[in-house]
């Protein structure tokens, strides 16, 4: 199939359908309401289920129910709505259900704004709901990559019996870009008979629950989760390296929309002789700790910088990854403002000076 021009939010919906997700429960919230609108139109055409829930609380509990019943299911929301889904995310993780959730992050805190932000990094990566759990978090940077990540999210959720969270922002959800839905092959759904509530006609009953009155059993389960997250780290940690193969002095770390601005800035700076590249995490959990640390141990890398649309959340993971071997430069815009390539270029030039790197003079 040739590439077609499609709005990000609608492409997310179509990608889910192409991945065999025929059920969607959601609640409207800007800037991603078009996903629900698209699903309300498309799902009936393919024999699927669309429900507009009364709240994000209910929408997320509906996907808990549908996922427990063993079908591919998705909801999408934006920051304030994701806060309301925190309860269900914890239960989905605890009951080991494979649900897919998209958070199109907007400016915050509070009602905040509707424009692009990365302020929900901690909420996405460090938990969000109560208790010790992790979502596998994907942070695509283009509409095409969002499509591919949505299509991969379902098999990943089923592989780990764990929620997969995709985060993006209004830039990606509202922008039209060319997409090719055939770039990724859909993996068939894994067998659900062992755990899903499909009716116990010809098998022992299945129970979806997450209550351990015996603390030993609850602790055992937590140890099992640790093993699950280790496996994710070993097998499904994804990142992209940009211009890192010719001995750069500086590594810039950025994800999602911000990584696109950083890419432009690096392109410009390299024309002027600056030696720098970017590591772009695609999974925010698991985070590419090992790769960043390895970069910090090379002889040529002498500085790290982080650019985020938040007060500095991912930078904590970068600092941990490199064990604070170097000071980590930081630049941010917030509240719905996307950094311009010019201000990122100025920041990175200044970082070259501050860190005593050769920069353009080399």
């Amino acid at each position, binding site marked *: 199939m040739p590439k077609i021009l499609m709005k990000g939010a609608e492409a997310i919906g179509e990608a889910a359908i192409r991945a065999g997700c025929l*059920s969607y429960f959601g609640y409207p919230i800007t800037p991603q309401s078009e996903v629900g609108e698209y699903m309300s139109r498309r799902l009936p055409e393919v024999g699927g289920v669309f429900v507009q829930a009364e709240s994000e609380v209910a929408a997320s509990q509906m996907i808990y*129910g549908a996922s*427990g*019943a063993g079908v591919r299911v998705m909801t999408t929301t934006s920051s304030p709505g994701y806060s309301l889904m925190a309860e*269900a995310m914890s239960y989905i993780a605890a009951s080991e259900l494979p649900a897919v959730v998209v958070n199109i992050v907007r400016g915050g805190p509070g009602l905040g704004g509707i424009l692009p932000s990365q302020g929900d990094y901690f909420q996405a990566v460090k938990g969000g709901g109560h208790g010790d759990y992790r979502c596998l978090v994907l942070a695509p940077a283009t509409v095409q990559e969002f499509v591919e990540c949505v299509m991969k999210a379902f098999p990943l959720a089923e592989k780990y019996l764990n929620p997969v969270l995709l985060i993006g922002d209004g830039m990606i959800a509202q922008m039209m870009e060319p997409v090719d839905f055939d770039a990724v092959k859909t993996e068939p759904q894994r067998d659900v008979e062992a755990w899903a509530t499909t*009716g*116990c006609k010809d098998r022992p009953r299945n129970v979806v629950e997450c*209550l351990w009155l015996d603390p030993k059993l609850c602790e055992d389960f937590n140890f099992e989760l640790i093993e699950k997250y280790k496996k994710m780290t070993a097998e499904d940690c994804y990142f992209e390296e940009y211009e890192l193969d010719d001995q750069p002095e500086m590594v810039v770390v950025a994800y999602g929309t911000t990584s696109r601005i950083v890419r432009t800035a690096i392109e410009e700076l390299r024309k002027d002789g600056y030696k720098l590249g970017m590591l772009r995490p695609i999974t925010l959990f698991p985070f590419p700790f090992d790769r960043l640390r390895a970069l910090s141990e090379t002889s040529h890398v002498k500085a790290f910088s982080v650019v985020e649309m938040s007060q500095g959340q991912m930078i904590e993971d970068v600092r941990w990854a490199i064990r604070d071997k170097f000071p980590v430069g930081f630049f941010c815009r917030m509240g719905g403002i996307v950094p311009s390539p010019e201000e990122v270029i100025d920041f990175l030039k200044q970082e070259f000076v501050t860190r005593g790197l050769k920069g353009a003079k080399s």
Partner: protein
Amino acid sequence: MKTIFERPKSMTKAETHYCPGCTHGVAHRMVAEIVDELGIRGKTVGIAPVGCSVLIYRYMDTDMQSAAHGRAPAVATGVKRVRPELCVYTYQGDGDLASIGMGEIVHAANRGEKITVVFINNAVYGMTGGQMAPTTMPGQKTTTSPKGRDVNLAGMPIRMAELLSTLRTPSFVVRSSLHTPHHIIQAKQALRRAFQYQLAGTCFSFVELLSICPTNWGITPVQSNKWLEETMLPYYPLGIYKTPEDK
């Protein structure tokens, strides 16, 4: 020898954890008997609440899902919409359904979800230790209304059957009671009808069961039945509030 009474096939052999005199056991058995009688064990999914009956999934020998506090109707919606061939019911207490879960129950009823809701109204929070519920009677003493429910501050008890019957979406809404054998027989008839409406794909069905909680009411089971009759029945009239045949 002819067997005239036995454990319903849809119940496990687990011993329940309920207090002496509690009516949850009666209500559980009623649900299981109906599942047996309708021959739907293999396609029934129960949704457990948070509250005293949080462990109902240990007692029902069918597929079960637990729900977060108050969210059972949303979880049931998710299950039923993607597998409409299943028989899906929720089992919820008054704190779960009428307080924290008010949004979920009203909207599930209003969408006309083809599910059955078993609503246990015993006028008190049980598991957390006898706090005031939305259904606690005026003047009723609880651990958070030590001088009795003050309706000037807490409002009047919420009557869920009446409230849900105001919705214009067709449904089956009934209130029954479990305080005498006679009422239990009537309650079971209502509950069977509720399941039958679901199986026929007709409508949302809601059965409120007035129940007793001797432990948190601080009186004996016999006194509790009397208190239910004298205090709750006048405020929570029994009967069928709405049927899908209503014009």
